[in-house]
């Protein structure tokens, strides 16, 4: 493994080297994803039952035209927008603070903000159900009473429950996003800031002129996975309502819908159809966003 001076000829060629580097992914894709994905596409044109697999053409896709599907899509869309608004700028700014010279107890705060992500879903579900319960004594209601509002039934109204979902998402993911930004901040050479100091640049202009541009690649990454995470959200909803669905589908998401149709109602073909549509939507949105940010351009 240690190459001092003895090295492969092949590893020297700039034409072949990149293919060696990406080989693990290609292999993994061929072995583990090409077949299941092909099967999933096949199933989306079938009715899949034990010993009764029948081809039904586009029926599964026609079934998508129903209120639940639109509701799920709408929920995911709103959730994605909110999480993008909350979970990108805030962690970015917090990471800058945590990276600044003025900050004390950095390690402690980093750990504190990161810890929520470690809590098992089953348990976090119990906790948040109680936090957002409609009782006067529940944590969230205590808090808003303190602000002068009445107690709310958080898990019954669309607006309130969306708020609850975004709160849980923020709680779970903020520390992780801070981590992404921090790792990138570490790589910004200090000399750049020192040079700016000599030029007499203020805090804000340093942030805009140095930090933000240099964080661009990581910001693109965080934005992409936040969008993807928003469309693929199921866990947060599962924490609040479990697997039996939510009142009037206020917590229904696309992945929840796949799960409900595929495994609760045992309609695997329809589940696959929903999943493929979700895949196309997420990939489409991400592609547009990446193209827009010039990610596929030749970088030289």
């Amino acid at each position, binding site marked *: 493994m240690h190459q001092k001076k003895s090295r492969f000829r092949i590893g020297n060629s700039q034409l072949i080297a990149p293919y060696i580097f990406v080989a693990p992914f290609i292999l993994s894709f061929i072995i583990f994803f090409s077949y299941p994905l092909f099967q999933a596409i096949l199933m989306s044109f079938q009715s899949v*039952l034990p010993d009764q697999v029948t081809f039904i053409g586009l029926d599964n896709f026609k079934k998508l035209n129903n209120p639940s599907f639109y509701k799920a899509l709408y929920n995911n869309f709103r959730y994605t927008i909110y999480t993008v608004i909350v979970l990108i700028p805030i962690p970015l700014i917090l990471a800058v603070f945590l990276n600044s010279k003025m900050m004390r107890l950095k390690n402690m705060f980093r750990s504190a903000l990161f810890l929520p992500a470690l809590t098992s879903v089953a348990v976090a579900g*119990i906790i948040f159900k109680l936090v957002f319960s409609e009782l006067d004594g529940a944590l969230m209601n205590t808090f808003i009473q303190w602000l002068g509002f009445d107690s709310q039934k958080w898990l019954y109204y669309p607006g309130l429950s969306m708020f609850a979902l975004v709160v849980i998402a923020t709680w779970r993911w903020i520390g992780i996003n801070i981590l992404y930004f921090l790792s990138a901040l570490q790589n910004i050479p200090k000399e750049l800031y020192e040079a700016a100091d000599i030029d007499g640049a203020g805090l804000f202009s340093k942030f805009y002129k140095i930090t933000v541009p240099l964080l661009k690649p990581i910001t693109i990454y965080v934005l992409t996975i936040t969008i993807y995470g928003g469309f693929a959200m199921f866990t947060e909803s599962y924490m609040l309502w479990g697997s039996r669905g939510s009142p009037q589908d206020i917590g229904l998401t696309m992945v929840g819908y796949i799960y409900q149709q595929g495994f609760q109602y045992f309609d695997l073909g329809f589940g696959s159809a929903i999943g493929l549509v979700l895949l196309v939507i997420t990939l489409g949105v991400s592609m547009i966003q990446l193209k827009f940010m010039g990610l596929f351009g030749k970088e030289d």
Partner: protein
Amino acid sequence: MSKKGNLLLSLILAVSMILTACGSNNGGGNTPSTPTETSNSNTEGEGKTEAEQTNLTLWTFVQQHADFYLYMADEWNQANPDKPIKLVTENIPYDEMHTRLLIALQTKEGAPDLVDIEQSKFPNFMKGEVQLVELNDVVEPELSNIVKSRVDIYSQDGKYYGVDLHVGATVMFYNKEIMDQAGVNPDDIKLWSDVEKYGKIVVEKTGKPFITFEGAGNWSWWPAINQLESDQVSVDGKVMLDDERNIRAMTFFKKLVDEGIAAIAPGAGHDTPEYKAYMNAEGAASVFMPFWFMNRFTDEMPDLKGKIIIKPMPAWDEGGNRSAGMGGTGLSITNQTKHLELAKEFLAYSKLSKEGNIQVWKQLGMDPIRTEVWTDPAMSEPNKFTEYFGNDIFDTLLEVKDEIYPVNIREISPQVFDSVRNEIIPRIFQFGEDPETVIKEEADKLRKSLP
């Protein structure tokens, strides 16, 4: 600095090598159990068994059930030394266990011999070619001894595929202290109309609601309409949510809520921590829930010990049914078993025999499906339930024994139950909409969307 990087890298590589090395030796865990091999060679001289032990695997989603089956397997081995069983139970999270079973049956690989299937999930396993084994030869001889509806649920076209663990008879749990405070005798509440009459007095005297209903669940409306011998899904598997008896029951419940006699359970259901905290603090005077709810009282509402009494439900009309069988889990055998006869014998022994049914009460605190054991002396032996509720638990059960009407669970049930839990009940109880309108709307919606 680059030294450091190199150090880290070599560390990672070294660790990965060590890990992969030990991974290949013992990381594999158990060998995959391909259908061609049944390993029953690992009986490692645990007392010389005369006969070869047969391995049976059983999946469940409740640890207490697993413990019960293991106990019964030990009993079986003592009673049948000629055909001993080595029962391996797997306790798997609820949703995932059913998902995994669907996948295993669909792919025809990896299903267990025996499996606990929860009632509301059962219809999924009746779709396509049924992959469960027909149990008529062990169930039919016992039909006269058991509450028949508890095997009818798990049947299709006259074939039995599962046997329930318990009856799930719905009963009233009264808080004796609150009732005494209001000067109301629970025995006077014979009809639902009495609930309105005496419930008013309880509310006036104590300021507490007389009863609670689930605000996003099915444990209030469903037993109530079952008393009227109606259902949400008809015998032939059609939507019958908007049957007039159902509307009658819901309209009356809504009236009780509007009059403040009934409250919506905190947490929107009776099996939530919020409700238990509320009830534990003497929140309401009564609740009706199936028999299995007793262990929620003993384990999760300890402060009510000695205050709760069990009585039959009020009937809708003179001579009407005063109970309903709710909830349940059927034990089934999959067609991938290699030991069909033995699995069947063990299923019959643990679920249909007298010994098994006595243990259902002793170990799980549930009402066994074999009715003769209800009068067995074993039932009145002191345990945590008799300490909590008193000694007359089974007297109530015997009183309503013949008033338990079967429920229909069919292919469309999962969708119908979801509609009840997430649409009908919240719209009426949380948003105060008119019962009749909501029920008719949702029933029509379901009829349109279901094949």
